[in-house]
C-alpha cells in the first residue's frame, strides 16, 4: 500500500525531490490550526517576555514598599502586589524570563550530551554501548528528583550555574537512550554500510550522514525536553530548591501559595504564574506533538 502510493506520487511529479524535513513540518503546522496557534503564541510570548524584561528595572522592582502590601490588582499594579508590596506583573515577567532561559540552557546541555552519547553508542555498539547502557540503566532506576534536591542542598556555593549543571547531570539520560535506539537501527542501513566501504571516517558518518537523517526525532525530543525542563525547574523552585532567592522564577511566585492565607485570599499572587506555566507547558507540548506527527509518515495530517 505505502509502496504503491510513493510510485504514484513519483509519476505525477517526476522532477520534484521528496519534501525535506522542514517542508514536512511546515505542512503539518499549516494543517493543524491549534499547533500553528501554539507556535505563534510561544514566539510572541517569549519575545514579549525577553523585550519587556529589558525595560524593567530589577532593583526598583524588588524594593519593598509596605504601603502597597498585598495590594489587589488595580490601576497601579495590574496584577497586584505581594507581601512586600512588590509588583507581581514585573516579577512574573522577570521570573518567566529566568525560567525559560534556564530551561533552554538545560535542554541544550542535556541535548548535546545525550545526542552525542546516543549516536556514538548506537553507531559503534559493542563494549562502548555496553558500558554506557549500564550507566544509563543505573541513572534511570535512581530516584533522580530526590537526588537532585539533595545535591542542591549540599552544594556549598550555590548559583544559577550550579543549578543548571546539577539538573543536566541527571537529565541527559533519557535523550541518550532514545537516540541510541534510533541510531542502532539507523547504523544497519545500507547507506551507512556503503559509506563505510568507501572509507569515510566514523566521525563524518555519525555527525554528517546519520545525524541529519535522525534530525526530526532529535527536534521532537528537544522540544518535549524543553517542556519537561520548564516543569522541573518551576517545580523545584516551588519547593524552594530551585533558583537562589535573589533570582525570581515562575516557581518562586507559585510558592507564595505555600502560605494558606495567600492561597485563599490573594489569588493574584500565585495564580497568574501557575496559569503561565500551564499555558507554556501546553503550547510547547502541543508544538512537540505536531512535530512528532510530521516525523512519522503514518500519523501526518498534512
Amino acid at each position, binding site marked *: 500500500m505505502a509502496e504503491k502510493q510513493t510510485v504514484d506520487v513519483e509519476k505525477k511529479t517526476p522532477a520534484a525531490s521528496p519534501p525535506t524535513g522542514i517542508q514536512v513540518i511546515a505542512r503539518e503546522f499549516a494543517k493543524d490550526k491549534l499547533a500553528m496557534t501554539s507556535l505563534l503564541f510561544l514566539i510572541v510570548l517569549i519575545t514579549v517576555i525577553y523585550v519587556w524584561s529589558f525595560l524593567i528595572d530589577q532593583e526598583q522592582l524588588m524594593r519593598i514598599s509596605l504601603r502597597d502590601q498585598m495590594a489587589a490588582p488595580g490601576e497601579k499594579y495590574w496584577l497586584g502586589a505581594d507581601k512586600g508590596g512588590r509588583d507581581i506583573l514585573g516579577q512574573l515577567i522577570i521570573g518567566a524570563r529566568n525560567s525559560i532561559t534556564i530551561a533552554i540552557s538545560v535542554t541544550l546541555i542535556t541535548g548535546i550530551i545525550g545526542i552525542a552519547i546516543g549516536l556514538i553508542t548506537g553507531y559503534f555498539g559493542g563494549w562502548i554501548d555496553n558500558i554506557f547502557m549500564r550507566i544509563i540503566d543505573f541513572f534511570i*532506576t535512581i530516584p533522580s528528583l530526590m537526588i537532585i534536591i539533595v*545535591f542542591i542542598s*549540599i552544594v556549598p556555593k550555590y548559583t544559577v550555574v550550579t543549578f543548571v549543571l546539577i539538573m543536566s547531570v541527571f537529565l541527559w539520560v533519557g535523550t541518550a537512550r532514545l537516540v541510541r535506539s534510533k541510531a542502532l537501527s539507523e547504523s544497519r542501513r545500507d547507506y551507512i554500510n556503503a559509506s563505510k566501504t568507501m572509507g569515510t571516517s566514523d566521525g563524518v558518518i555519525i555527525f554528517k550522514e546519520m545525524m541529519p537523517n535522525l534530525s526530526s526525532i532529535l527536534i521532537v525530543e528537544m522540544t518535549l525536553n524543553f517542556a519537561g525542563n520548564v516543569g522541573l525547574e518551576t517545580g523545584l523552585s516551588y*519547593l*524552594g530548591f530551585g533558583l537562589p532567592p535573589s533570582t525570581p522564577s515562575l516557581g518562586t511566585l507559585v510558592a507564595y501559595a505555600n502560605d494558606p492565607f495567600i492561597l485563599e485570599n490573594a489569588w493574584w499572587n500565585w*495564580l497568574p504564574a*501557575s496559569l503561565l506555566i*500551564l499555558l507554556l507547558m501546553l503550547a510547547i*507540548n502541543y508544538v512537540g506533538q505536531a512535530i512528532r506527527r510530521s516525523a512519522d509518515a503514518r500519523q501526518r495530517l498534512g
Partner: protein
Amino acid sequence: MWKTVVRRFLVMIPQLFVLSLLIFIMAKFMPGDPFTGLITPETDPARIEELRQKAGFYDPWYIQYINWMGNAFQGDFGRSYTFNQPVANLIGTRALNTFWLSLLSVVLLYLLAIPLGVLAGRYQDTLLDKSIVFYSFIVYAIPTFVLGLISLFFFGYELGWFPTSGTVDINAEAGTFGYVWSKFYHLLLPAMVFAVLGTTGVIQYLRTEIIDSKTMDYVRTARAKGIPNNKVYSRHIFRNSLLPIAAFLGFTITNLLGGSIFIETIFGYQGMGQLFVQAINGRDYSVITTLVMLFGFLTLLGSLLSDIIMSIVDPRIRID
C-alpha cells in the same frame, strides 16, 4: 519464566549497591555528623570526641560504609534529631500514610483510565475519541504542583468540598468509623489529582491496543461466529488488552513516589514525600539518606514488577 524473575532480581543487587555507595558519598559531603543534634552549649567537646571515636567517625571510609550498611540491614538507620526519634519509627508511620495515598490513587487512576481508553479505542476517530485524546494530552502537559495547587484552591478553599490539609480530622477518635471516613476524606483530593495526572499512559496504551486488535484474526472469528459487538469488546478484545496495562503498575509506582514530594507538600499530607522536604529543610541527614535509599529501592521494585508482569504477558521477552 522463573529464570527471568531471578535474573532481574540479581541485576537489582549491583544497582542497589551503587546507589547505596552514591548516597553514602553524598552523606559524607553533608555538613555535621550524627552527633551534631546532641551538642548543647553544656556539652564537653572531649565527650563529643569520645563519642565520635567510639562510633568509628575516624575509621577509613570503607569500614564506615560496611558498618552503615550492616546497621541498615538490621533496621537501624540512626536517629532523627529534628523529630528526636529513631528514623525507622518515624518513617514507619509516614510510610503507611503514603501507602494509603498511593493505593487510592492507583485504584482511582485505573477506574478513570480504563473506561476512557476503551471508549477511545472502540469509537476511534469520533468526537468522543478526539476529546479523550485531547484530555490525555492536557493532563500529560500539566505539572503536578500546578494542578495540585489549583484544585486545592478551587475545591478546597473556594468550594469547601474537601479538607485543605492534614491526614485526619483532629477531633476524630481512633478506631471509630468516623476516623476511617475522615482519613479517606483527607486522601480523596490528593489521590484524585494523582489519578488524573497519571491517566495518559494507560489511556494511550489501551487505545492503540484496542485499535490494533480490531483487525486481528481472533476478533474476526468472534464476529463471524455471530457474537454481538458489545461482547466482542468486553470479552475478547478487552481481556487481551488488560494484562499489558497491568505492567503500567510498576511505572505508576515510580511516578507516585516522585509526585508524592509535591502532592504531600501542597496538601500538607504527612507522608514520606513531605517528610523528605522537611528533612532537607531541617538538614536532618539520617532521615534524608534513609528516604533516598528507600525510594531508590521502591523505584527498582516498581521496574522489577513491570518486567515480571510483562514477561508473564509476553513470552518473547523471557530469558530461557
